[in-house]
């Protein structure tokens, strides 16, 4: 187990390293001059030169990369124009927003977390619940309803669902305020009412896949011998289905959930754009539009960290759910 974990963490680190190199190359080595985006207004050649100097763009790529990486691990000193000392997870200085990138991230990350975590809980409960119910009530109207629901959800577009929800609940019925983010600890009620549309639309679209997958898995598990044995020895239905069968059926669901949640934490670009909430995804999009290199770099890296972490976590969960994995 320990060996497996070490191997896994090693390959995860390697992946992150490769992502950082690739992103770095993509934006520094491609033809567009990285400086143009960092000097938004009244750009004269001298100012451009100064920005180049401050960013160390004259240095060879490798030392630029090394400097960036060193900044993340130990922090580094940036020029006085870039806010001077930049502490440990130093992601550089943005000339577009005129603040340290880590400050921007620190502001928008909670927003994305507030969107994704409740939505993920909702879509997992809804998806796996629907899948279970339709597997147990196979062939009934309930089953057909659940299948129809999941097929509809799988075919809908988030921006379309979002637009309809906005139109109905915000503009026409005026039941909800225009979506916005309020910190949870400031006002939990406002936090929820500002984000509930995002949760609901994400949950509706995502739960579809889980419903289908867990239904198929559940049906397969229910036909296995151990389920019949458990029933035959007199174990109550809820215990058999809820504990024994569900546990065996859930592994592929965990895999997909890991991928989805990891991906979503890296920024729910479409959701944030649809509802006009400034999270990680929208920050990344804005950064790309304005050519704000340090911010792009940081958002891509953070997104990759979430995906890789989620993958490692899924492997660990596998071991927890399925004892056979532990023995390997």
């Amino acid at each position: 187990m320990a060996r497996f974990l070490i191997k896994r963490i090693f390959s995860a680190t390697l992946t992150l390293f490769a992502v950082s190199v690739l992103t770095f190359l993509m934006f520094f080595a491609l033809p567009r001059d990285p400086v143009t985006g960092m000097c938004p207004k009244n750009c004269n050649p001298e100012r451009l030169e100064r920005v180049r100097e401050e960013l160390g763009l004259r240095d060879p790529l490798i030392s630029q990369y090394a400097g960036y990486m060193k900044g993340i691990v130990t922090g580094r000193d940036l020029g006085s124009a870039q806010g001077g000392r930049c502490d440990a997870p130093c992601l550089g200085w943005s000339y577009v927003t005129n603040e340290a990138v880590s400050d921007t991230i620190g502001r928008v990350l909670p927003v994305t977390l507030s969107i994704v975590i409740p939505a993920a809980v909702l879509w997992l409960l809804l998806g796996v619940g629907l899948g279970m119910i339709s597997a147990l009530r196979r062939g009934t109207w309930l089953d057909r309803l659940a299948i129809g629901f999941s097929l509809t959800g799988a075919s809908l577009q988030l921006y379309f669902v979002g637009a309809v929800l906005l139109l109905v609940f915000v503009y026409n019925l005026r039941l909800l305020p225009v979506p916005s983010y309020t910190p949870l600890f400031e006002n939990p009620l406002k936090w929820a009412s500002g984000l509930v549309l995002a949760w609901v639309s994400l949950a509706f679209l995502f739960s579809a896949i889980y419903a289908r997958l867990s239904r198929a898995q559940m049906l397969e598990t229910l036909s296995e011998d151990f389920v019949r044995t458990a029933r035959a020895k007199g174990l109550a239905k809820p215990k058999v289905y809820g504990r024994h069968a569900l546990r065996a059926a859930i592994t592929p669901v965990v895999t997909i959930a890991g991928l989805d949640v990891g991906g979503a934490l890296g920024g729910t670009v479409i959701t944030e754009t649809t509802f006009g909430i400034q999270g990680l995804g929208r920050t990344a999009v804005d950064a790309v539009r304005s050519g704000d290199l340090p911010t792009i770099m940081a958002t891509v890296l953070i997104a990759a960290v979430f995906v890789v972490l989620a993958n490692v976590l899924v492997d660990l969960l596998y071991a927890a759910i399925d004892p056979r994995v532990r023995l390997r």
Partner: protein
Amino acid sequence: MSLSPVEGVALAEIESSGDPAAPERAGVVGRSPGQLAWIRLRRDRTAMVSGAMLIFFLLLALAAPLVEMAYGIGPRQQFQHLLDGFGMPLGYAGGVTGEHWFGLEPGLGRDIFIRLIYGLRTSLFIAFAAALITATIGIVLGTLAGYLGGWLDAVINWITDLTLAMPFLVIALALTPTLVLRFYGEREQVSSAFGVGVLIGVFAIFGWTSTARLVRGQVIALREREFVEAARASGAGLGHMLFRQLLPNIWAPILVSFSLAVPQFITSEAALSFIGVGLSDETPSFGRMIYDSLDYLQTDPAYVFFPGITIFALVFAFNLFGDALRDALDPKSSR
């Protein structure tokens, strides 16, 4: 948005279809697995309805210029005289009339129906091209990784992980303008063929992972079977092993994943246009239309609904058909 729905299917496939081409007793008449699947598909009402819908959509897309001739209005024609002083279409439901079936775009006053027909053409072309390319890449990498194993398997797996770890939308958003700038000047008009090509390229880079994983899993399951061993023992070369022995046995899940990948790419194209990369306004596409329409959500909801409903119907038909195809190809699948 990740490409995960295909991933889900991939896993379901690996788990559930141990042997897609299992021989079946069919009375006196001998039938190939393909024929059996076709018979099952014919019997499935959902499959027939969704299949008919798909053929209808495909024909509409292929015959777009003919539709234009019959309809009498071009995708770039403007009808400013049918808009009011604020650029809003006159009449009900966004200016729906006998002449303009789906109404007019606010602002420019172009006909929505004919733009949707051309948008269908663009979206379907991009989706099919991307699905073909990603399927090819996925099949090649997946079979190689699964069959040869060892360090090659490790490397391909790692590249898959790496590709999955990159945030698709952000990279695509950043990559597209840089690529365009590489070939076109700052102010030059980018040709629509080039824009389409860039989109397909971006999809090709990011979309192959699910097919590769699916194929790899299937090949690993087949690798130890007797017939593969027998072929290897008789001295079959690598090409023969991959294309004559392994591939014919896994075409069923590949076909299913292909049919479910196409709607995935349709939505991805729309999503990219939605965040502002993708195609220019010159080329009609679904995503572009929805993106433009969202500004008019309160003033002209019909403009949001027509493209939204059309894309839903298209993707829904593809998903239904993909599901039915899976059931037909895999007799053991539970539905």
